[in-house]
C-alpha cells in the first residue's frame, strides 16, 4: 500500500495539518458557494448543449395541477379516486373469486377421493387436503382477484405522479399532528403492505418523525386486511340495502374505514409527538414531478409480479402452516364434553369478545392469523362451521346465512370487526420489519402492542355505546 501511495506518511500528516489550518479561515457559507458553483456550471453546460422549444401557451401539467393541487378540490378528488378504486375492486373481484374457489375446491375433492381410494389413513387425507391445501385454496381465491384489480389501479396512480400530490394535499394535517409531510407517502405505501410502508419510512430524514411514521403505519389497512373488510362490507353491510346500491354502499363503507384509519394515524401521531416523541414539525421539501404517461408494461410488471405475486406467496407461506394448525385444533377432542380444541379456546375467549362487540371465534381467528392477516376470514368461518375444516361454500348468501342466522352476527359485529381489523396489532412481518428499522425492542413493542390497545378500546367504546342506545 505504502509503495503505491505517491506521498510519504510524513507528507500526508503535513497535508492534514494544512487542511486543518485552512479550514479555520473558511467563510461560513463556503458550502453554499460550492453548490452554487456546481449549479452554475451545470446550467452553463446545459445552456450550451440543449435547445429549449418555444414555451407553449398551454401547459397541460399546469392545468391539471390547478385542479389536483387546488385547496378546495384537491382532497375531495383524492377521496373520489380512492372510492372509485375500491368500488371497481369490489365489483370486479366477486365473480372471479367464486370461480377460483369452485375450481380449487373441486381439485381438493378429487384429490381427497384419490387418497381414500389409495387407502391413505383419514388423518393424512384430512391434514394434507382438508387442512393445508384448503388453507391455500381459500387464500388464493379470496385474495388473488381483489389484488389483481387493486394493485394495477394503485400503480397507475403511482406511475402518473399522483402520490406526491397526495402528500402535498395532506401535509397540513400531518403538520398539525407533528408529523412529516412525507408520512402521507409512507402511509399510502402502507395501503399496499404495512411492512413495505415501514421500510418506506426511510425517506423521512428526521429521526423523530421517522419513528412516528413507523409506529403509526399500521393504522391504514394493508391489502391483507382488504379481503376481510371488503368481504364483510359486501356480505353484511351492503346486503342490508337494495341490490342495486349494495356494491356502492359496500365501497363507501370500506372508504369510511380507510378515512377512520387516516384519522387514527393523525391522532396517534399527534399523541406521540406530544408525549414520547416531543418536538416541532420539521422541514418539508417535496418534489412534485411532472405527470408521465403510465407505462403499461411496467404497471403490469410491478403490480402483478412485484406486488400481487409477492404478497400472495407470502400469504401462501403462512396460510399453509396456519391451515394445518386450524385442522389440528378442529380435530383434536379434549375435555369431558369432548369438544374440539378450537371450541374450547373460542369459548374461553367469548366473554372478552362480547365485551368489545365481537365473539370468541373472531378473537381466536386473529390469534391464529398473527403471522398473516390474510387468513382471518377463512379461520373464522372454519371454526364457525365446526366441520373440522374450512368451509368450501363461498357464495355470499350462504355466508350471510351462516354468520347472521346461525351465529348471531349483527351490524354491530360487522362494524366492530372492520374497526378491529383496521386498528389491531400489525402482522408478524411488519413487527419484524419495525425491529429491523428501529433496532429497538422498546419501540417495536410499542408499535405492536399500542395498536392492539387502541383496537380494544375503540371496539369496547363502540360496543358499549351501541348497547346503551339499544342497538346491536
Amino acid at each position, binding site marked *: 500500500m505504502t509503495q503505491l501511495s505517491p506521498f510519504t506518511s510524513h507528507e500526508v500528516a503535513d497535508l492534514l495539518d494544512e487542511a486543518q489550518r485552512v479550514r479555520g479561515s473558511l467563510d461560513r457559507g463556503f*458550502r*453554499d458557494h460550492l453548490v452554487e458553483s456546481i449549479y452554475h456550471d451545470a446550467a452553463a453546460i446545459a445552456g450550451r448543449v440543449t435547445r429549449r422549444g418555444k414555451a407553449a401557451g398551454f401547459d397541460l401539467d399546469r392545468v391539471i395541477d390547478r385542479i389536483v393541487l387546488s385547496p378546495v378540490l384537491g382532497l375531495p378528488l383524492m377521496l373520489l379516486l380512492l372510492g372509485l378504486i375500491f368500488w371497481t375492486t369490489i365489483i370486479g373481484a366477486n365473480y372471479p373469486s367464486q370461480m377460483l374457489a369452485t375450481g380449487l375446491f373441486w381439485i381438493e375433492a378429487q384429490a381427497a377421493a384419490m387418497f381414500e381410494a389409495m387407502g391413505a389413513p383419514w388423518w393424512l387425507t384430512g391434514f394434507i387436503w382438508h387442512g393445508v391445501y384448503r388453507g391455500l385454496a381459500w387464500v388464493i381465491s379470496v385474495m388473488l382477484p381483489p389484488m389483481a384489480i387493486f394493485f394495477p389501479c394503485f400503480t397507475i396512480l403511482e406511475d402518473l405522479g399522483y402520490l406526491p400530490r397526495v402528500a402535498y394535499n395532506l401535509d397540513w394535517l400531518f403538520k398539525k399532528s407533528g408529523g412529516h409531510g412525507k408520512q402521507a407517502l409512507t402511509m399510502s405505501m402502507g395501503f399496499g403492505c404495512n411492512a413495505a410502508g415501514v421500510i418506506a419510512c426511510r425517506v423521512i430524514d428526521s429521526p423523530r418523525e421517522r419513528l412516528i411514521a413507523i409506529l403509526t403505519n399500521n393504522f391504514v389497512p394493508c391489502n391483507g386486511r382488504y379481503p376481510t373488510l371488503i368481504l364483510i362490507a359486501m356480505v353484511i353491510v351492503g346486503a342490508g340495502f337494495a341490490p342495486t346500491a349494495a356494491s356502492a354502499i359496500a365501497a363507501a363503507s370500506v372508504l369510511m374505514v380507510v378515512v377512520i384509519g387516516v384519522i387514527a394515524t393523525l391522532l396517534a401521531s399527534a399523541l406521540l409527538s406530544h408525549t414520547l416523541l416531543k418536538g416541532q414539525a420539521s422541514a418539508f421539501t417535496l418534489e412534485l414531478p411532472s405527470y408521465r404517461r403510465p407505462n403499461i408494461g411496467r404497471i403490469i410488471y410491478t403490480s402483478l409480479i412485484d406486488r400481487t405475486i409477492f404478497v400472495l406467496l407470502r400469504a401462501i407461506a403462512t396460510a399453509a402452516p396456519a391451515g394445518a394448525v386450524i385442522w389440528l385444533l378442529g380435530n383434536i377432542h379434549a375435555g369431558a364434553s369432548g369438544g374440539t380444541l378450537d371450541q374450547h379456546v373460542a369459548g374461553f375467549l367469548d366473554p372478552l369478545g362480547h365485551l368489545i362487540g365481537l365473539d370468541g371465534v373472531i378473537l381466536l381467528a386473529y390469534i391464529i392469523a398473527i403471522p398473516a392477516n390474510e387468513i382471518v376470514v377463512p379461520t373464522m368461518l372454519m371454526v364457525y362451521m365446526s366441520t373440522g375444516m374450512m368451509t368450501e361454500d363461498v357464495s355470499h348468501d350462504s355466508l350471510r346465512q351462516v354468520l347472521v342466522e346461525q351465529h348471531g352476527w349483527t351490524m354491530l359485529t360487522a362494524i366492530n370487526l372492520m374497526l378491529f381489523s383496521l386498528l389491531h396489532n400489525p402482522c408478524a412481518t411488519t413487527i419484524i420489519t419495525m425491529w429491523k428499522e428501529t433496532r429497538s425492542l422498546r419501540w417495536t413493542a410499542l408499535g405492536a402492542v399500542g395498536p392492539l390497545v387502541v383496537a380494544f378500546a375503540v371496539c369496547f367504546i363502540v360496543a358499549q355505546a351501541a348497547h346503551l342506545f339499544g342497538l346491536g
Partner: protein
Amino acid sequence: MILTNQNSDAKSQQSGLWGWLSRWKARRQQHRMEDLLKHLHACERRRRTASVESAAGFLHVSTRRAMTLIAQAEARGLLRRAANGLALTDHGRELAMAVLRAHRLWERYLADEAGMPLPRVHATANRLEHERVGDQVDELDAVLGFPHTDPHGDPIPSAAGQLAAVPGIALTDWSTGEAGHIVHLEDEPAFVFRQIVDLKLMPGQRLQLQSVDEHGQYEVNIDGRTLLLSPQVAANVYLEPLQELHPTAIAAPRRLSELHQSEAAVIDRIDDSLRGLSRRRLLDLGMTPGTVVSAEHTAMFRDPTAYRVRGTLVALRREQADRILLRDESTGE
C-alpha cells in the same frame, strides 16, 4: 479518556442484579466526576473561584458527597486544592475539554440533523457527553463537517483540546445605531435562554440596535422585525460587527413566503439560521442564490406552497419559505 473506578473492571464481570447495580453506580460516579471537572473548567474560564460549595450546588448533591467526590478526583490527579479554592490539573483540564467537546458536538448534531428544539438540546447533550466510546466523537466531528461552534455560538474545542475564546460583545455593551450579527447566545440560565428562543433569535441573524428606553429595554431591528429585549436577554446576546453593511442586511428583506401566486423573484440567500440537513436539501433542489423562483400553487390553509424552481415543482412548508430571502429588485442588484 473515560474515567472508570480502579476496581470497576472486576465489578463489571459480575452478572445478575448485583453486577448491573454496581455497573450503574460506577457509571453515575463517572458522570458526576466529569460534571465536577466541567464545573471547574467553567469557573476557570470565567475567572471565578470554584469551591466545595459551588461544586455541590452545580452537581445537586450534599456538601459531604461533594467533598468525597473532590477527594477522589484529587487522588486521581484531576484537580488540586489551591489557596483560593479548587483548580484543575493539566490532566483534569484535558478531560474536561473532552467532555465539553462531546457536549457541543452533540448539541450541533441534535439541533441541525435531528431537528430537536433548541431548549431541549442542552439537557440531552448533558446525557450523551458521558458516553464517549473510542473515536466516536471525532467521527461525529467529521460527519458534521468540523463545525466551529455549537448551536448557541459557543466554540467547540478542537480534537487537540484547543478552545477559542467566546466570540462577540454583549448587546448591553453595544452602542445605538450599530449593526452586527449574532455570534453567541448564552444558554444559561435556562429561563432566559427560553425567552431568547421564543423571540426566535438565532446565531447568524443580523441585528441593529435602535434605542435603549428609560426602563432599560433594548429596541432592536432583526431582519426587518422590531423587537424589545429585556436587559437580561440583551446581556446574553453576543454580537460581532458586520464587516460590510449589506444593503439588504438590515432593511426588511422580502421572504419567499411573501410571494404572491404566480409571482416570480430571485433568491438572495438562505437565512443562516437554517442549517444542517434542511439547508443542504434546499441547496440540492437548486435553491441557490440568484435562482429565479415563482409561486404556483398553495394548498389548504396556505401551507405548503408549490414553487417552480429550475423547471421543477417543489413544495415547501411556510417555515422554510420564511427562511429564504429574496433579492430586492428595486435596488437593481
